[in-house]
């Protein structure tokens, strides 16, 4: 904690320009013979580090340090709808266990809902030490006031050092509310989490549309809160023997009131959208006939993938127009894309070249798809795919 000050006596005609320009936010102004920092300042301190020497200075101010040893354990919020646990929860339990191991912490779950006591058993198969259950009729639907109250009660009782919450629509609504209540930090959509020896949680997230990664810590408040999206962390394997215990918690009735009334709940129709797909099999012109889609379908089934394709396949009616990748179709960014028999025109690659892993099979070794593929496989898809299907089946 601290503040920026400007040593005006070190400002001169030769360094004013340099100083004003060094701020990426345009927050340093030269006005009436004085350097001023305006409200655009983000406290990045670049002006101190990279500006003219000695002009800008960051002065630390004394803060009262909290006693971190009073906060122990890692809590995981159990994301669910009517007791059906969202799989992001298991992934967070897996991560919480890794983090807890560094500092010898326990892993807790906080499960808020109605008629969920028996559902809590399931969590004990994933290595949780204790599940705190808040089970009241008023908690049947997610409503912000009583859910925050139950979560708050858990934090006050257990004093967890860190809390992990799934970045679902519920988690992204609940976690900020709790963070504000405890006046603590919250980092959204973390992709990497690490634990320091001093129990500070290192939170890394993409910023500025993914162009930059930011490493964030919360050094002087507890609990530390982070949200993590689904499918970022790995779920541990389910153990056949449950371990740990379930604690049913009481909450004062007055905390269960809400100004919100849920009138109607409709299950979402699951519409496949290739833009959200994590794994995609994309097919191109090398596909000879529509019946060969069966082979593609089998491979897609094994990899839990959606099928997409290039424009010629849409035009021949073999795939739906919504499944077209490219400038005139959708842009996709899956974790894995396998391009089969696609030459790789810019039209197509512009819609998929930021995918995490790109495999391409093409019989033409000069095909431009190999310029974007991480793994370029020179060969005939009609020979490779059926064997690949067998190999994957054997590997499972």
């Amino acid at each position, binding site marked *: *904690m*601290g*503040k920026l000050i400007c040593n005006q006596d070190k400002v001169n005609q030769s360094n004013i320009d340099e100083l004003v320009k060094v701020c*990426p936010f345009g927050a340093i102004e030269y006005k009436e013979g004085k350097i001023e*920092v*305006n*409200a*655009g*300042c*983000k*406290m990045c301190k670049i002006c101190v580090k*990279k500006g003219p020497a000695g002009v800008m200075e960051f002065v630390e*101010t004394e803060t009262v340090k909290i006693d971190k040893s009073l906060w122990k354990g890692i809590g995981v919020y159990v994301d669910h709808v009517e007791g*059906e646990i969202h799989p992001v929860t298991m992934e967070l339990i897996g991560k919480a266990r890794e983090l807890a191991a560094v500092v010898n912490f326990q892993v807790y779950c906080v499960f808020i809902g109605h008629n969920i006591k028996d559902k809590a058993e399931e969590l004990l198969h994933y290595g949780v030490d204790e599940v705190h259950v808040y089970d009241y009729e008023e908690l049947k*639907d997610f409503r*912000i*006031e009583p859910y925050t109250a139950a979560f708050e009660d858990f934090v006050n009782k257990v004093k967890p050092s860190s809390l992990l919450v799934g970045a679902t*629509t*519920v988690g*992204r*609504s609940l976690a900020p509310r709790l*963070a*504000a209540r405890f*006046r603590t*930090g*919250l980092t*959204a*959509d973390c992709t990497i989490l690490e634990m320091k020896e001093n129990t500070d949680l290192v939170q890394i997230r993409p910023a500025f*549309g*993914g162009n*930059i*990664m930011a*490493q964030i*810590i*919360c*050094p002087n408040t507890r609990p530390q809160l982070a949200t993590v999206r689904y499918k970022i962390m790995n779920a541990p394997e389910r153990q056949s023997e449950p371990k740990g215990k379930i604690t049913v918690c009481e909450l004062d009735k007055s905390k269960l009131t809400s*100004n*919100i*009334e*849920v*009138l*109607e*709940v*409709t299950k979402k129709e699951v519409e496949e959208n290739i833009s959200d797909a994590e794994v995609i099999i994309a097919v191109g012109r090398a596909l000879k006939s529509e019946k060969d889609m069966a082979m593609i379908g089998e491979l897609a089934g*094994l990899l839990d993938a959606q099928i997409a394709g290039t424009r010629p396949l849409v035009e021949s009616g073999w795939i739906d127009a919504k499944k077209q990748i490219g400038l005139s179709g959708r842009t996709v960014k899956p974790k*894995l894309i396998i391009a089969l028999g696609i030459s790789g025109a810019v039209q197509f690659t512009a819609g998929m070249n930021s995918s995490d892993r790109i495999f391409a099979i093409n019989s033409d*070794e000069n095909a431009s798809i*190999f310029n974007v*593929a*991480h*793994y*370029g496989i020179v*060969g*005939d898809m009609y020979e*490779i795919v059926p*064997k690949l299907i*067998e*190999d*994957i089946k054997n*590997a499972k």
Partner: protein
Amino acid sequence: MDILVCIKQVPGTSKVEVDPVTGVLKRDGVDSKMNPYDLYALETALKMREQQGGVIKVISMGPPQANDVIREAYMMGADEGALVTDRKFAGADVLATSYTISQGVRQMGKFDLILCGKQTTDGDTAQVGPEMAEYLGIPHIANVLKIIEIKANSVIIEMDMPNTIEVAEVKFPCLLTVEKDIFQPRLPSYRKKIATKDREIKMITLNDFEDKDEKKYGLNGSPTQVERIFPPSVNNDRETWTGNSEQLSSKMATKLKELKFV
């Protein structure tokens, strides 16, 4: 009804890079615009006023040049606007920002409804709306897809939940964050631009707040600290495999397994 819409000025582009040598953030140009998601919140307020009458105020926080987005809101039809601005707010993270705006909101009168966009395009956290609601002591609903009915003391909305769509009624006062596409935002009007060019924009600084404790604002009021920023690792390794189809398929299956796709 009285509606407050929270708006933010964001960079015109998300194209920023970290200089690999100096570690300095490079921004292309200084173009800025209203956070696109806020346009939906503002349009929602305008549609509600058409139906119910009332006043729409907008609030923003940022450097003095963030006045531009309030002018833009005037051009779309907002009645009044204020900018919360002070050097002492510099370096605010989500918590300090939410608290600062909530203090600013208290200087703007009473509201039935506060509307926010679902998130900003620069911070991307979607956290400021809910945290503000906490500091204002009112309920909030995030990810609102539709306004179904406005009643005298409540509003019925449709919201997006992980596996369900839910219809809920929430009493005033409350805060809603609205999804993109709730309504199609109108374009700023030239006539309104002329008509509102002299309209005042209220400036709210720390001195105007009820809570003037400097420790709660800016860097000092921010529990999170950015330890470092760095460019994301990009997978630029490319390899080409050749061989007979048995070799290729088994190599591929092995790789897919190694990468945990099997």
